[in-house]
């Protein structure tokens, strides 16, 4: 056994191995934090600490200048409200009272006889979002605009809760007759199946339940989306789809969801 002490700088093996480890550590730190970040031709660091922090992965807030702001109102409704998913009985009751003014078009039980959307059983987030957009001007409609203008957030939440509480119209449609565009979309033209957002396969928050809606209403909205007359769909999610639909497909979708096909 060697009498020499192991952990001592006088031990040549110890000092060499520790020295080597330190050299490797420092050179990799210099490589990783300075040389490689600066070697990237697209790096735009404001200084050495900026480069080091970025290489270490400290997040920075995205900040871009020269942003082109929209000249139209963008839908600003927040759909994550807990009251929309689990409303109180008081909210539903108050909504029922408020809904009396809607009954002339949307029907006393939320089923329209005037080609206005059927609201019975519609998702609460959808009703809240559309009312919010009618009030802010993100969605324009000569009839709905003046109604929504006088509503506050409480009214909208209560109306949404009431209509979501009502039972949906039972479907009388034969499931064997689903048009191709509804069943599987048109992936080669960038169209996902309708049901992948609208609830029959998968539900995307903010997308309406379409079964039983009047054909004239669905057709008109698809055409508005396609032409850009309606643009309260966040990030163009529905305009992207409606633009790719053919005239026949729009008609097929509308009559399928209306249950007339």
């Amino acid at each position, binding site marked *: 056994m060697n009498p020499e002490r192991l952990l001592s700088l006088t031990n040549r093996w110890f000092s060499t191995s520790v020295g080597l480890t330190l050299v490797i550590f420092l050179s990799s730190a210099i490589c990783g934090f300075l040389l490689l970040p600066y070697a990237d031709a697209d790096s735009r660091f404001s200084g050495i600490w900026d480069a080091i922090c970025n290489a270490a992965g400290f997040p920075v807030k995205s900040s871009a200048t020269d942003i082109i702001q929209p000249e139209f109102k963008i839908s600003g409704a927040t759909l994550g409200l807990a009251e929309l998913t689990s409303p109180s009985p008081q909210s539903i009751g108050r909504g029922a009272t408020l809904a009396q003014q809607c009954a002339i078009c949307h029907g006393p039980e939320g089923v329209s006889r005037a080609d206005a959307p059927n609201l019975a059983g519609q998702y609460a987030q959808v009703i809240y979002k559309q009312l919010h957009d009618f009030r802010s001007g993100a969605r324009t409609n000569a009839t709905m605009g003046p109604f929504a203008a006088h509503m506050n957030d409480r009214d909208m939440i209560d109306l949404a809760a009431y209509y979501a509480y009502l039972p949906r119209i039972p479907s009388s449609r034969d499931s064997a007759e689903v048009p191709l565009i509804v069943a599987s979309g048109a992936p080669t033209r960038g169209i996902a199946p309708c049901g992948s957002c609208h609830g029959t396969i998968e539900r995307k928050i903010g997308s309406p339940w379409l079964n039983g809606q009047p054909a004239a209403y669905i057709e008109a909205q698809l055409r508005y989306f396609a032409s850009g007359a309606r643009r309260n769909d966040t990030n163009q*999610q529905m305009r992207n789809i409606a633009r790719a639909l053919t005239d026949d497909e729009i008609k097929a979708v509308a009559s399928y969801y209306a249950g007339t096909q």
Partner: protein
Amino acid sequence: MTSEDHAASAVVAQKIERRWAAISILIVVFLTAMAAVAGIHQATMPQARVEIIDPEKIHLSGEFVETNLGSAIEPDGSVTVRAVGQQYSFTPQCILVPVDTKVTFRATSADVVHGLLIQQTNVNTMLVPGYVSEQVARFSRVGDHLMPCQEFCSVGHEGMWAMVKVIDRNEFMSLAASKRRVSCVE
């Protein structure tokens, strides 16, 4: 079997072992070198900085509002493309870029994890809600590329793709002169 035979066969075995060891070391060296060359010359480098953004508010203000999406010319002559991925489409649906120009893609997701991949190129990144993905590219030929979502993002995933059209630089500049954000969405 005599002890001489045994010694002779041991020598042969040793020779064979040494040869196989040399071959496997060569294979290891070759693979390492291949990875190093590809990593240095053809790799897509990881993003230089981690940028965060509130995914619930991207459509309301900031660089990802819908009117700011598309291709923009920067003061240094390069082009920045901004895009949003969402269930189940990219906005803009058709991206226009000039050939032989530095193009910086900046994109984010509005809902779940999506993927941005431009076929026939090495542009390939994930779009993670809450983060801005940035990647620099340069297209050497005029032509069209598909840009499918490459991360399964739920049932409508197969319908989610956009088009990247690479066009002549002068043609792009004349289009960009009349509009501040360019895309080929009709």
